[in-house]
């Protein structure tokens, strides 16, 4: 039975979202396509003229894709392990995963600039393990950036996977095994499809965070590593060219929506 009185409860959130999310977004879109002579896509033409902007877009997508893939590769088994823990051990593990989120991303990124130095812990560890004979340059390299950014965003991949694994009825894999399915078959045909919603949610979260990352690439790669978020900041702060910033913001938004939409679609198909 409908309870119309409760509909009003959602109004504050709707108002908040409309005022602080939808309206600025609309202004951004309008700003990117509005010139002195009216509606125009001239700013987009200028932005994509030459190879520089395409390189920035490709670099942004590459960073987001690699971050998502590496987070998935690390986060999927870790999410499983977390779900299989019991009692206090699981509470401790979840707390250990969540607590770093309370730390500012700036502090974490600065921390990685120390850890990734030639005399930093990472290099000392690599040498102690015999993997390298001498310090290797990690800071201001894409490898160093990926190490840092995956560490920071990994909880956002692990938590949805952990939640989806917890939902799986433990009898299902057993039933599949009873019917003659091998471990790999059980995993691929029973367990994996059931965790795909968690994988989809994790990939969506990590991709969205990575494609919009500003602080981490700036601190771990410096100003020479230009992505769409740094392009937006430069356009508004230094070039005093809000239309260029609006175009870069719209391109970033479109790419995010496209990839997130595709991810959700495939996750839904896989789970069906």
């Amino acid at each position, binding site marked *: 039975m409908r309870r119309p009185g409760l509909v009003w409860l959602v109004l504050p959130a709707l108002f908040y979202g409309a005022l602080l999310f939808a309206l600025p977004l609309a202004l951004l879109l309008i700003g990117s396509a509005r010139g002195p002579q009216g509606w125009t896509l001239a700013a987009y033409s200028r932005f994509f003229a030459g190879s520089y902007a395409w390189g920035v877009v490709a670099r942004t997508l590459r960073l987001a894709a690699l971050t998502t893939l590496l987070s998935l590769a690390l986060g999927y088994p870790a999410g499983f392990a977390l779900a299989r823990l019991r009692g206090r051990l699981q*509470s401790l593990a979840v707390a250990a995963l969540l607590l770093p989120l309370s730390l500012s991303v700036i502090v974490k990124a600065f921390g990685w600039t120390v850890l990734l130095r030639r005399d930093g812990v990472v290099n000392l560890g690599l040498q102690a393990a015999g993997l390298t004979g001498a310090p290797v340059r990690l800071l201001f390299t894409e490898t160093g950036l990926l190490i840092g950014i995956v560490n920071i965003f990994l909880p956002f991949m692990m938590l949805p996977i952990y939640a989806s694994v917890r939902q799986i009825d433990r009898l299902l894999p057993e039933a599949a095994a009873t019917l003659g399915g091998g471990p790999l078959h059980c995993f691929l045909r029973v367990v994996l499809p059931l965790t795909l919603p968690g994988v989809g949610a994790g990939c969506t979260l990590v991709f969205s965070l990575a494609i919009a990352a500003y602080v981490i690439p700036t601190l771990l790669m410096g100003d020479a590593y230009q992505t769409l978020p740094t392009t937006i900041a430069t356009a508004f702060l230094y070039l005093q060219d809000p239309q260029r910033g609006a175009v870069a913001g719209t391109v970033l938004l479109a790419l995010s929506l496209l990839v997130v939409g595709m991810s959700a679609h495939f996750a839904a198909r896989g789970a069906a």
Partner: protein
Amino acid sequence: MTASTTRRHLLTSAAASAALLGCPAILRAEGGDLVVGGAAGMAGYMKQFVFPVIEQKLGIRVVFDGTRSLVNLEKMRADRAAPRMSVVLMDDPVMQIAWDEGLLAKLSPQMVPNLGRIRPAAVHFDGAWANYQLPWAGIAYNTKALPQGVASYAALWQPAAKGKVIVPSLQNTEGLWTLIAASHLETGKPFQDAQYDAAAGFKKLAALKPNVLTVYTNQPQAENLLESGEASLMSGQFSSYTLIRTAAGAPVGLSAPQEGTFAMPSGICKVKDGPNGAAADAFIDAFLGPAIQSILVEKSFVLPTNPAATLPPGFAAPADPFAPDWAFVNRNRAAWIQQWNQIMG
């Protein structure tokens, strides 16, 4: 039962984490505090040596907001209706923009008596802003890696410096020095003429790329990398940033290359309609007075603008640092930043 206990544990953990997330340490300036904007690179010596003296003298608390001059400018624009900062320390070229946009309150000798006692050339537009110090810029280096220092800007391009050079972004004013030095090396023209040949500078900068460890917009982070030995050379560094670290025992030095050094007077201004106007005037007056300028000369290795300031024994600064045509810089800077990003990106 096990599941419900686990859920409770999970919820407890989540609630504890959410509480931590929801309580960031947001520091807000109180009503009597004077919010002063300035460069992040000066935060250390200002907070250690300068602000405590002024706070004690004036009975105020200084809240320093350290970032880049262009970011401070953007904050002044955004807060124009209700400024948060009362005083801003910025480079002259950015001061010029702020003045043109009506963001500054004019200083008067009645409220700032030391305005009439500093060198006349240090007062701009009849009191729009004033220079309180004259730092010079050269090449900073790690003394363990390069005990002999740096003789020429050409050292930045040497094969031995591969992956060991840090350069400031053109978004930072000190980024200009590398561009002008590059133009000089490419064309052989003196700085005075080379500054107008940015194309030659960018051509030379493209050849620097293999040697560049990073391009910074955050000076303290870059300084840290130089001191740790991750980098050997950092171009375009001010005496007020580097030599104070040398004096503190850090393994860094500042060379005045044979081609010349650069000068960038540091300015102080009062924000139009900013809070605590009287305290802002008193703060600016202190910065233009001999007592604070003597501290700055001694602690940050700059030239004073007040002739009454005392120079410490043995004080040495390069003769005649080059000051560029700021009007030309301001007209071209946006295009240069885009070109810089394309070359370095």
